């Protein structure tokens, strides 16, 4: 291990940990059966991708106006 790596690791050693909070969590969709949950996850992912694209478009427009 190099001295740089040692220094980087020390940053963690001298850190303090905290627990995750509810605000860190995003629930995944539920269902009664394997196929139901699979379908719900597909829809969930499609929506996440659409939301990300919409956000990127808005940010690009704001950047263009600034």
């Amino acid at each position: 291990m190099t001295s740089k790596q040692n220094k980087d690791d020390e940053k963690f050693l001298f850190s303090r940990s905290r627990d995750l909070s509810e605000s860190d969590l995003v629930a995944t969709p539920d269902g009664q059966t394997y196929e139901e949950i699979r379908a719900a996850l597909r829809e969930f992912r499609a929506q996440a991708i659409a939301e990300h694209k919409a956000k990127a478009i808005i940010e690009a427009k704001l950047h263009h106006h600034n």
Partner: protein
Amino acid sequence: MPAEVFFHNKFKGSTARTTFFSDYLALLPSEDNLLSDFIIKVKLGMDLEGRNKSSWTDTNDAEMKSLKLTSYKLCKLWHYHAGPFTGLGSFTSKNVRMTNLSGQTSAAVVHYKWYDSAQTKLVIIAFSPVHKPFPGANDVGNPLSLRSGLLLSNDLIPA
């Protein structure tokens, strides 16, 4: 026993991708299928056929005496070999709450931790398309420690 499954919000909302880590929005369809299979089986309380272990221990379940793994132990990070599997040889399937060193291994890995001590809520922290055993906590693109609740000393501002 079933468990609730959550994404870490930074995993769910990000597009970062390196050789060893991919966020949710950057997953390939085949990787999304592997992740979904894991999520569904955990939600339904089904046994898992992949290797499942804590991220600071070796394949004999012995703690690795390595500084770089300290953060994984502090954060109680685990990872599950998500497939695809060869199905060759003998292997065991176990519930996600159990260490399964005899499970099948694979390139793809799901990194997760339990939100609560009762292990009712599982949080997915990251996905590795290719498993790099014991990645350094500060490796480029490695989100594991910071998303698991560890604060860098650099992030602290004395009051």
